């Protein structure tokens, strides 16, 4: 045992000698706000004139010039609107800036050209509010068909006391709002993957053993039954009320309830609670085609408590989304809520620690993330295969390090229950075999025995090295296996 430890230590030490720093690849730059201004960012949108809009939990909407230019160019802030009620969604369309706020979906326009909005139109009041602080409303940008998606938190951790609390709605270009999914607990953000399918993040708690990224398949039930009472008011928009998951003391498993509840869609990517974060938030797909580095087409997910941003690789297997979460960046100044990535390859995040503490330590942040042009050595994709996983890499690997001893894996799941959260349960330690390594050293196949449906497969690749003898910048991946491909 001692011997193993020594060897491990040696590996780590060698690694440190060539240590990569995340900041070699991505820089985080704080964008200074005007003096006295508090920007508790709830959502960020890009405007057609090149400005960046950010709305704050305190109700202000700022438009910022030069935020997307060279970071050295001073940003110019204009107060577009203020005194909205905790807006957590911002979307631009046809000359209007839409905000999803507590009482309604609102759209705003500056009629007299002084940079401040004068006209505030109520677009949708379909979702009720009981006046509880917990009833957060998050909004997306417009989707490819012109719909604005909004996701509505329950009244508390356990109740739905106003119409459509715990539901997801879609507002059409002509202002009609219809339910699109149910079963939400406590969302932190909503957005789209590169393909344009909608996703949201949901926080650990009742019926959520862990926080996760969830796929908003139209008509789906997302797992928390407390809001299902509103089927009576949904006019069949998403079919009939699904059967309830069991309320019994010992709880169930998502993989079991998928059989019992046809419309239930399991979490696409579990973000293991406590390990990688506590409170996932905003979602951004990388549509920059390489301007933001090697992860084009993948997704990024904000993390409020740990002041981080995760990276997510998604794939659809047997009609269900699943995939892997990788650590990406940490060290933000406050609790990231909004995350937005432009086609120009500039990412922004903003948030706060108000009421929900965050590692960053500052009350709020507005920060910009740029790719330095250097490619970090990372697991690029992790795909499920019939007998294991296929990993691809951003850099060719040292083939001699592609041995079973370089990897470890634990698989586990969570109890699906009405109680708050869940420990990791049903642990499995599979055996790992390296089946093959690609000629170009950019991918390899792992055989995993057994693969367990419904489990997070947590892979550590501490021993793997690049052809340049670097260890992975992040040597861990968490793959949620909902389906096994043929």
């Amino acid at each position, binding site marked *: 045992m001692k011997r193993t430890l020594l060897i491990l230590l040696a590996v780590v030490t060698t690694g440190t000698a060539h240590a990569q720093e995340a900041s070699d690849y991505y820089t985080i730059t704080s964008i200074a706000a005007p003096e006295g201004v508090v920007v508790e960012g709830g959502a960020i949108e890009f405007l057609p004139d090149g400005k960046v809009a950010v709305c704050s939990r305190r109700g202000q909407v700022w438009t910022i010039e030069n935020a997307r230019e060279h970071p050295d160019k001073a940003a110019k802030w204009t107060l577009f609107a203020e005194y*909205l009620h905790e807006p957590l969604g911002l979307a631009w369309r046809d000359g209007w800036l839409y905000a999803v706020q507590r009482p309604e979906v609102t759209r705003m326009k500056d009629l007299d050209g*002084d940079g401040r909005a004068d*006209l505030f139109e*109520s677009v949708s009041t379909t979702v009720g509010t009981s006046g509880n602080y917990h009833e957060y409303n998050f909004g997306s940008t417009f989707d490819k068909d012109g719909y604005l998606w909004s996701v509505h938190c329950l009244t508390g951790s356990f109740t739905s006391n106003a119409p459509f609390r715990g539901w997801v709605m879609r507002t059409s270009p002509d202002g009609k709002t219809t339910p699109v999914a149910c079963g939400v607990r406590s969302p932190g953000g909503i957005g789209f993957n590169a393909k344009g399918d909608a996703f949201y993040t949901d926080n650990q708690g009742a019926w959520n053993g862990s926080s996760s990224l969830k796929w908003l398949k139209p008509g789906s039930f997302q797992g928390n039954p407390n809001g299902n009472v509103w089927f009576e008011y949904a006019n069949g928009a998403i079919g009939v009320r699904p059967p309830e998951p069991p309320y019994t003391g010992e709880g169930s498993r998502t993989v079991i309830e998928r059989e019992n509840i046809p419309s239930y869609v399991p979490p696409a990517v579990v973000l293991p609670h406590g390990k990688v974060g506590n409170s996932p938030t905003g979602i951004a797909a990388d549509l920059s085609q390489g301007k933001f580095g090697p992860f084009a087409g993948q997704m990024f997910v904000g993390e*409020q408590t740990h002041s981080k941003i995760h990276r997510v690789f998604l794939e659809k297997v047997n009609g269900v989304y699943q995939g892997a979460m990788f650590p990406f960046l940490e060290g933000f100044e406050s*609790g990231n809520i909004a995350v937005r990535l432009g086609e120009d390859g500039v990412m922004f995040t903003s948030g706060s620690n*108000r009421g929900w503490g965050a*590692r960053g330590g500052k009350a709020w942040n507005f920060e910009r993330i740029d790719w330095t042009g250097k490619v970090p050595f990372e697991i690029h994709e992790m795909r499920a295969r019939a007998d294991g996983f296929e990993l691809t890499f951003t850099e060719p690997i040292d083939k001699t390090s592609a041995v079973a001893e370089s990897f470890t894996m634990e698989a586990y799941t969570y109890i699906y229950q009405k109680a708050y959260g869940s420990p990791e349960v049903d642990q499995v330690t599979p055996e790992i075999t390296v089946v093959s390594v690609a000629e170009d050293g950019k991918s390899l196949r792992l055989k995993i025995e057994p693969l367990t449906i419904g489990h997070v497969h947590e892979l550590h690749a501490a021993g793997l090295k690049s052809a340049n003898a670097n260890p992975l910048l992040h040597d861990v991946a968490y793959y949620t296996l909902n389906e096994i491909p043929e």
Partner: protein
Amino acid sequence: MIVDIRPIFSVFLGAVLAVVSGPSADAEPPEWSGSPDIAITIKTLPGMMRYDSAEIEAAPGAKVKLTLDNPDDLQHNLVLLKPDAEDKDGQKFSQEVWQLGDKGIELGWVPTDHPRILVASKLLDPESSEDLYFVAPENAGDYPFVCTVPGHSMLMKGILKVQKPGAVLEDLNYSIYEGKWSKLPDFSTLTPVKTGKLKDGLIDLGVAQKIKGPVGIVFEGKLRVENEEDVRFYLASDDGSRLIVDGEGIIDADGIHPVTDPIEAREHLLEGVHTVRVPYFDAGGQRGLSLSIRSKSFGLSVLSTDITDRKAKSATPKPILLTPKNGEAIVHRAFITDASPRAIAVGYPGGVNLVWDADRMNLVQLWRGGFLDVAPHWTGRGSSSSFAGFDRVHLGSGVPVQVLKSLDEPWRPLSRGHIKYQRDTAEPQAEIEFDLPEPGYHFSGYQLDAKNRYPTFRYLYNDEIEVEETFQPDTIDGSEALVRTIHLSGKVAADSYFRIASGPKLSTNDSEWIDADKLLIKLEGSKPIVRSIGSQSELIAALDSAADNSTLTITYRWKTKVGGKKN
């Protein structure tokens, strides 16, 4: 709430630090669990990510029963730590715990064998509590406590102050008087209905518990000062009180008022025994009386059982006042007391403020003076904004337009839905009641004018009639006033009425002004009708069903002049 944070004993245990309850939830309560020296309750504040106490106290060696009560909807714990000069508020320790990751989850975020932990609760689920028992350390000092759930400690933290018990009042006697006063009377000329002695040496309004309604009490005791020194006194009460030391009035908190921030006074006291006399009266309603002292040798000592003022002070965020500036109105969407969650508050320059309800499409409240304190809204997870002004009047909360077959027909109530459903709560089958959209009404939004950013509210009535409301602040005879114009673009049905006010006592006299509580209301464009339905009175106006459009102009003014609050 802390019931009593003072040791109720004065015997020191000579033992060194003894922790009798480890972090394990299975630890047996000690033999003395039924009779601790001090019982402290710390609550989590729902939605605030805070404990309700940032500072608690215990004497060295005191047997402490600490109850952690978690009414919040998140899991929390409480870990009491040994002091560390490098980590005075336990943040470093918390960071260390977070780094445990997986292991931390298993441990309920309490690394039991960590040398800094004195005592720790288990990870409490929402709506649960736990009693912890421990003996306070012998060494005086500040012992930090934190919630170690990742992300919580930055806000969920506090200090256990271990210090020698402070001063008490010796030979503390009380005399109770019956009578109704608006200022402290000369109690020496009155005959008490009851007298007695307080053994704990703490001023306690509980002595007059049985007397409901107005009461007067005089407390008199002795304060022993070992070394000549400066002593600060803090007095707060509801209603009036005074602090008299050695026959000399030190603090005057006389008159009828709620508990305010404590009034402070400094006194140089010589070595020896000093008399402390506190006359107090309550004219009705809530009672409160707290007296504290602070000095080098006493530390901070509370000389009363009532410490509500100090608690209230530590839990209330600093005000953040919204004040209309540059001649522009503020149109603020927020939760507002006594209005629906979709209400909109508007503050105009000049001190006229209103709430227009975007659920009911009607003006529901008016007040004058300051606009809003949004600290409760912009602090923690956010609750209702507080009114910063005065003379607030409710104008009712119904929908604005209705067809009445006769003037006896009541205004219809708001649309409410009722539903029963299986929930995860203690009352799974409880019925919930909720707002439903008012049929035919659709809120369209508001527009701010270019000059003053005064809002025009717009909505649809009967699914098709566009209604616009504008407001213009004004001054009439030196009093704040507001002119409201309502324009309906479309024909209304026969017997349609607009409701202007309901609830306040309304009365008409010969003047054009209708008397409405603190307001006077004048109507143009229709004849005002004041009617009584049950105990309610209502001011309504008939709309002209023959006209293509209707316009009503309503002027509201306060009866008393600006600055005439007390009149």
